[in-house]
């Protein structure tokens, strides 16, 4: 992200990019860590209470890493892609598990 210049005003596209990243960090980051918690709890080879506990403990670290990723990557688009792609994979795994367990 560019270092702000206090005298010149910030461009609209810069502001939009920051706003987009903020959303990706707060909402996207939460979605990714929630899905990670869900998937870890479902797949970790532990007793179910231990798996849920471990997954919940780790989810906050995932969230922190996601936020840092969002503000590190080159463009806001890449930030969103980095959040959505793993979310889709995790969501898919959870769905597959849900349907195979139900069958």
């Amino acid at each position, binding site marked *: *992200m*560019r*270092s*702000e*210049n*206090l*005298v010149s005003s910030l461009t609209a596209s810069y502001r939009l990019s920051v706003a987009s990243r903020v959303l990706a960090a707060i909402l996207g980051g939460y979605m990714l*860590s*929630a*899905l990670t*918690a*869900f*998937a*870890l*709890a*479902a797949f970790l080879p*532990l*007793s*179910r*209470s*231990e*798996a*849920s*506990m*471990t*997954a*919940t*403990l780790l*989810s*906050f670290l995932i*969230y*922190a890493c996601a*936020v*840092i990723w969002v*503000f*590190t*990557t*080159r463009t806001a688009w890449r930030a969103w892609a980095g959040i959505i792609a793993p979310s889709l994979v995790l969501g898919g795994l*959870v769905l597959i598990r849900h349907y195979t367990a139900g069958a």
Partner: protein
Amino acid sequence: MKEGFRQSMAWLHTWSGLVVGWILFAVFVTGTLSYFRPEISQWMRPELRDAHAEPGAVARVIPTLQQRAPDAQRWFIQPPTSREPVVRVSWTNSVADQANGRPRIERGNFDATTGAELQVRDTRGGEFLYRFHFELSMQPIWGRWVVGFCAMFMLVALISGVITHKKIFKDFFTFRPRKGQRSWLDAHNAIGVLALPYHLLITYTGLITLMFMYMPWGVTANYGSDTQTFFAEALDFAPEAAPANQPGTLTRLEPLLSAAARRWEGASPALITVHHPGDVNSRVELRRDHQDRLSHATQALVFEGVSGKLISAAGAEPAAAQTRNVLYGLHIANFSSPGLRWLFALSGLAGMLMVASGLVLWSVKRAPTFARTGRIPFGYRLVEILNIGVITGLPIAIAAYFWANRLLPAGLPERSTWEIRAFFLAWVLSLAAALFQPARTAWRTQFTFAAVLFASLPLLNALTTDAHLGITLAQGNWVYAGFDLTMFGLGAGFALIAWHAARAPKKAAKPRKTRAEPLMARAEAEQA
């Protein structure tokens, strides 16, 4: 990002820190005071000066409770400790409160030797500050989410702050005083790095204390909405028993307490809950205290209320549950001896100073630019006012809370609520005062005011109660004397800050280039 990893982290550190900084400051201040919650509660009830704990006192409050609250859903009984030598009791009335439809909670303090109810002033004591620490006096659910959000960004600010520092070890030994912006940066770095393990620990474990509320999805994955089963399996929470609606006589408490002591290597319960007292299906639940253990595991014994038979005992915890319980225990810090508790409190103080110096640094860094252009943007002025209003306003509010405790008449209706109103009134006035003064004057006058309020508290205490230093020092009553002496210390600390704020700034903050340069790059250069 274009300028590279470290610079984008510096940006993230600046802005994530600024947005949540004011709330974090309040959370740090009230959280640090919560290490002394029992002592504060005790000082705010000066009538209890000579109270002392006696073993077996708990059982003596039962007859009183049976008279006062026979139809309560639950009695919560906190046995006396050396830090708070009274029996604190609360109970939920079966009659719903007219105001919000929920069961009404009543509270009482009982003598730890006779079991008689004590007549003490109505106050929330240290409990108010403790609740504020994670609920901010908002609706609990909203307050907890706001604090959780800020804690999450504190974690981000910490990690990005660490990444920003190329020479984290060197920063630790660097302080260049009286050099304006650079001194603020050095101070922020030194305090941040000095207590970094504490900051990381306390932020992460803070999230852990409410993790099932913030992040319920790991539990949902395996239990759906049946969280009760999860808590029973994972943390050994005993399932609730429904009342049978037939009268039953509660067994004597003493044998249950001795049974608990045998199982717990002599440790005593921190909380005794009697579910449905007077019902044939009543339960007595004893929760072990955590004074001698890191882990905050709910070691609970549940007895049948009528027969006194042990029906459930929380056993060994598996690895992940134990990890969570230890992290939780590290946050609450109930285990600590006075010396260790003061170390925690000093680290908490470092946390406050880190947040406060970070907030001030944001302003100081931008001041020269605006001084040159002569145009002060709204955002800059807003940050300045919030900085003054929160960093000086909150201590003033806390002092006002203590003052109100000594000044409000004992018979005032809703007395404890008025103490809390005094807290907020003082805070709002401090914010308003910051609006109408130049920043430097506001800093100086408000820190001076805080110094006067704190330093004169022991005098006010001496004028209004018998629990003052003249008596408590002679008695060796360190709960009361320690509080008063700490107030002198705080007063001196604020006086010192006010004195520093009053001195004219040296010209060291003078910009070295005529054009505004990218600020983060400059900060970078100075750290390198």
